[in-house]
């Protein structure tokens, strides 16, 4: 069974279309990066998945309808938005007590173990902690839950580089295994690129790219082209072109490597560069979502 299965998911706020018919299928054990510019509908999609907002179309998360079964779903789903959501008045021990009280899949000792590796004290209030420490606390609470799906919406917003790196390292080393699924949105694409198994680009409420990292790496190529070969490169229908120093960098979709090798050095584009290429493109190029 797919962990998340969305078919023609739609949501509009008045005249503004947040989701314009999104199809999505996320299997168990995947780490999906949901990437898009501001206003692309990422947060709306996540809120629909978490049962925080209503929607049209079909959506099943762990076999349930999130809008009508949010509380049952949350027994198996964890969610970190940005750091502001932990109640500021709460003390660390209260958060532990409360989680242990309401969440039958919460392992208190595991949470205390994670916290022991940080500087977060049990008697501190959330408002007394630094932003990085609040995230560490939230992550400790969430990792101690034996959840099937973890949803991260800009989890490292406003954190410094060290905390961001540690956040994802902890998540991968101490939490992730192949029975769990993680969906993450962030603007810091380059930081999560190496941990993703799958990627979805959203633009203006639509999926413009959906595939495994392997597929994406096999499909797109970046070529550094010297001035003499630029015309030849343009003739091969690149999806994007940018200039850097004296060379032009082209991104190609599906063009065979041997045809490109003659033009210059062929590389795999970074997700960030691919993202820029596809968002600049006026017509959505994504193939239909495989469901």
């Amino acid at each position, binding site marked *: 069974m797919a962990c998340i299965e969305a078919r023609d998911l739609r949501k509009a706020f008045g005249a503004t279309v947040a989701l314009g018919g999104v199809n999505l299928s996320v299997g168990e054990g995947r780490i999906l990066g949901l990437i898009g510019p501001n206003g692309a509908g990422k947060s709306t999609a996540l809120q629909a998945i978490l049962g925080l907002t209503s929607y049209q179309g079909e959506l099943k998360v762990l076999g349930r309808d999130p809008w009508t079964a*949010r509380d049952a779903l*949350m027994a198996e*789903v964890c969610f970190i*938005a940005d750091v502001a*959501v932990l*109640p500021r008045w709460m003390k660390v021990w209260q958060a532990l007590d409360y*989680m242990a009280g*309401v969440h039958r899949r919460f392992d208190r000792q595991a949470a205390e173990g994670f916290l022991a590796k940080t500087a977060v004290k049990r008697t501190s209030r959330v408002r007394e902690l630094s932003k990085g420490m609040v995230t560490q606390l939230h992550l400790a609470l969430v990792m101690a839950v034996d959840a099937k799906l973890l949803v991260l919406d800009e989890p490292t917003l406003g954190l410094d580089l060290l905390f961001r790196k540690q956040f994802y390292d902890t998540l991968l080393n101490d939490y992730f295994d192949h029975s769990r699924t993680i969906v993450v949105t962030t603007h810091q694409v380059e930081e999560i690129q190496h941990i993703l198994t799958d990627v979805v680009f959203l633009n203006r409420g639509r999926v413009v790219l959906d595939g495994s990292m392997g597929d994406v790496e096999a499909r797109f190529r970046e070529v550094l082209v010297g001035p003499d070969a630029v015309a030849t490169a343009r003739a091969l229908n690149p999806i994007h072109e940018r200039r850097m120093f004296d060379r032009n960098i082209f991104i190609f979709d599906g063009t065979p490597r041997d045809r490109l090798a003659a033009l210059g050095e062929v590389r795999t584009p970074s997700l960030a560069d691919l993202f820029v290429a596809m968002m600049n493109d006026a017509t959505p190029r994504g193939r239909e979502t495989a469901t």
Partner: protein
Amino acid sequence: MTRDTTVTAARAVARSFYWSVRRELWEHRAITIAPTGIAALAVVGFLLGAGRLTNVVRALAKPAGAGGGEALMNPYAFVGVAVIATGVFVALFYAVGALYGERRDRSLLFWKSLPVSDLTTVLAKAAIPIVVVPALTFVLLVVADVMMLGIATVAVVAAGLDPRLLWAHMSPGFMWLVMAYGLPYVALSYAPIYAWLILVSAWARRGPFLWALGVPLAICLVERLALGTSHFGSMLIGAFTDGIGEAFSVNGAGEAPIHSVADIDLFRLAANPHLWIGLVVGAAFLGAAVRLRRSAEPI
């Protein structure tokens, strides 16, 4: 569902309700601190006035048997009114922010990321003014009364007087019985008020306090201008005062305070249609608050 899974599910709901109530008390410490502080102040005041008390008892000891024994009960009534009023006050303030604060500070997203239903959350929040505050009020009054009776007895004995002179005028058991009888009724009669405030707190995007007062006042105004009557206004005043009158006065007439066990009549209270109408209205308000909370977003 088999019986076992039903029991497990019921236990899980009870657990999340219990922890939801506890977390409200963690966040809103005024609910416990304010009435406790007022009760403690009253006991301290009573202690400081112990000298006056012995004078009253000394007067009672005179062979002439001067009156004034009834005055010995006044401090207990005063503590009762002070603690009950404080409880109602903090409960009203709590209710008007109940579902507003979590949207305001964005913690809503954290609460909603946990397996606690909107119904459980709203009921836990409604239980604070309707159940927790009255229960706390009762416990505080019993403790305060016991301490005051102890202080009075020690003061009387220390002044070389017979404590039976004092105790002849004391009836703590009856006092507590009246509280146990009247407090739940008053709490239930206030339930629609609390439920209204919780509903407003779920719905107002700003200034829930102004909406909570403004909407009823606007209805009063429109009724007055359109029909020349003020039924809605008198109903509102009744919502605040009728419950107290029903519970604590003889036959609910609002004239004499109840003074004997014979005045206690649970059937009369339970048969009051106003109570039931109020509860139905309150339940409707809470139901609407549950619906609103389902689609609530940080503001």
